[in-house]
């Protein structure tokens, strides 16, 4: 309010400022909340390696060195994922959504790369069953969007099965435009809402 009179800023600018600061706070808070990000690093070691690392101590010659330090990241990473509840996993998911173009159900390079990364995770946790939700932005009609979301889900399923994921681990459901992730009416919001969103349904 003070700023409004002092700098004669337009309400819109102010609102933007407010939004930005809100965002900053949100980012800060979320960063503070999870100092040790449980997400796997970009190139997580294959499951075989992580399984063998705890029982792969160095040879006897280095007995003077304590081995506490070698409680390794990869193991902790695996445990950190699998020990999390499904709810927690889904809220902050290791599985990335695939985004789509307007009126399109085609996986682009970025979408394929995200789905492929998800496939790797699914291979590492073979008990996981996932549902991918097909979502659309609000610009299509509600009726057609139910089918478009279905087609987006099918595109993801086809790609995942091609990568070797067993079809019986995969469920899909279209929500059309009923459950937008971003309630806004901007290009950025719409881009967020055209997605196949992965949900872990059992593990």
């Amino acid at each position: 309010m003070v700023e409004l009179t002092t700098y004669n800023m337009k309400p819109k600018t102010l609102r933007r400022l407010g939004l930005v600061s809100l965002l900053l706070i949100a980012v800060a808070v979320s960063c503070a909340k999870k100092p040790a990000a449980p997400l796997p690093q970009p190139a997580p070691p294959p499951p075989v390696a992580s399984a063998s690392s705890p029982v792969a101590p160095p040879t006897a010659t280095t007995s003077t060195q304590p081995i506490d330090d070698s409680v390794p990241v990869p193991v902790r990473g695996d445990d950190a994922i699998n020990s999390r509840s499904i709810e927690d996993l889904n809220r902050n998911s290791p599985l990335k959504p695939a985004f789509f173009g307007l009126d399109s159900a085609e996986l682009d390079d970025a979408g394929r790369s995200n789905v492929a990364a998800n496939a790797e995770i699914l291979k590492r946790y073979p008990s996981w069953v996932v549902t991918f939700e097909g979502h659309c932005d609000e610009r299509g009609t509600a009726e057609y969007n139910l089918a478009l979301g279905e087609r987006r889900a099918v595109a993801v399923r086809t790609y995942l099965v091609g990568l070797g994921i067993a079809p019986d681990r995969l469920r899909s459901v279209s929500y059309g435009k009923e459950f937008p992730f971003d309630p806004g009416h901007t290009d950025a919001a719409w881009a967020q809402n055209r997605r196949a969103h992965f949900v872990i349904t059992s593990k």
Partner: protein
Amino acid sequence: MHASRTNSPTPWMLLILSVVGVALLAQVPAPAPAAGAPPAQPQQPSEIQLVISGDPGTPPRYAVPDFVALSPDLAELARTLGQVLWDDLNFEREFYMIPRDTYATIPTARTAEEVPLAAWRELGADAVVFGTVQRTDANTVRVQIRLFDVRSRQSAFAKEYSGGLANPRLYAHTASDEIHQQQRALRGVARTKITFSSDRNRETIAGPVQNREVKEVYIADYDGQNQRRVTANRQLNLMPVWAPDARAIAYTSYRRGYPDIFIALIYQGLQETPTNGVGQNWLPSFSPDGSQIAFTSNRDGNPELYVMNRDGGNVRRVTNNPAIDTTPTWSPNGTQIAFTSDRSGQPQIYVVGIDGLNLRRITTMDSYADRPTWAPAPFNEIAYAARTGPGYDIRIFELATGMTRQVTFGEGTNESPAFSPNGRHLAFTSTRTGRVQVFTMGRDGKGLKQITRDGSNYTPGWSN
């Protein structure tokens, strides 16, 4: 609900326990012995064909004053009945309805004999309604409604209704439908209902990332009154449509975690699930005779159209195409289905026989078209939502001429058209007042009326 159209009793039908026109009409003489009046019609009042006309070339001018409360505690109801009947008769635009705020100078009649026809004539009325309401018991009333031809001083219509007070507006609705039938050979819609999907309860369920707002199925009288909830499962419940008997609503529900078709028998509190767990199924549409349901299903890998018997038996696949085929609506004779397909690249409206043959595309000028709804006879036309900018407008394709007309023009986005059972009106959704709301309008785009105001409301269906 539809006393004249269904056989089995419903709670609402019990409102109208009797329609006693015979005795009433016989009792009521023409208010004053008019010179040159035609001889009184004998016996059956239903055979009387006194059609009230207006001045040449103009519709008859009707007046509907407040009803007379013969029991002192019914004054408010008497006023309401007059207003509702006026609104109902106004809705079909067959009559010129003289505004009710111009009646102040007309003396109030207590009996049919006192109706000051000369004064009504001075006001320009060709027809005037005289109605009474009287308490017959703690919870029952008797409503008498007469329609006088002001010029000939003849009684053109006289009915008595008795029943409860659960929805007293229904007395006026019934009289309106009967007057439209008798005076214009027109099937009115005053007793019909509209169903829709609404988020007004603001209930949410946990989503993977954030809470999600659910939608439930609601119904309302055709004029937006008596809105009530049909489903209560805190999930998505979408795109409801009425069965032709107006006693059941089919809709798409996610109560099992994926879209499937449910049928709510709204007067019995029962539910049917005709698809028997095969695939995911959505957008049900009843055949005009109610024996079959067309719907969209992914059971064979991508969205295709199917037809099944109402009980789920005898499933037939109608379309077979790698593109999306969805949103079916039946032709009035039940032999064809109009639907949406994006086989050309964008959603467009097509028509196909229910045997899957004789496919043709009917929209050619639209970049995006969805939600076809086929008008009942005699109107040979299909309404749909067409993308006309950032949003949509309602367009109507006339099958006989191949012409398309537009009935909304960018007042917000206008979607999901549904025809009234007489084909003269459309329900649809619009954002013209802010949030998505259900409106009705004439098939010419005139006579706009807002039906919902609470929350956001979607995808209306109109009952018989």
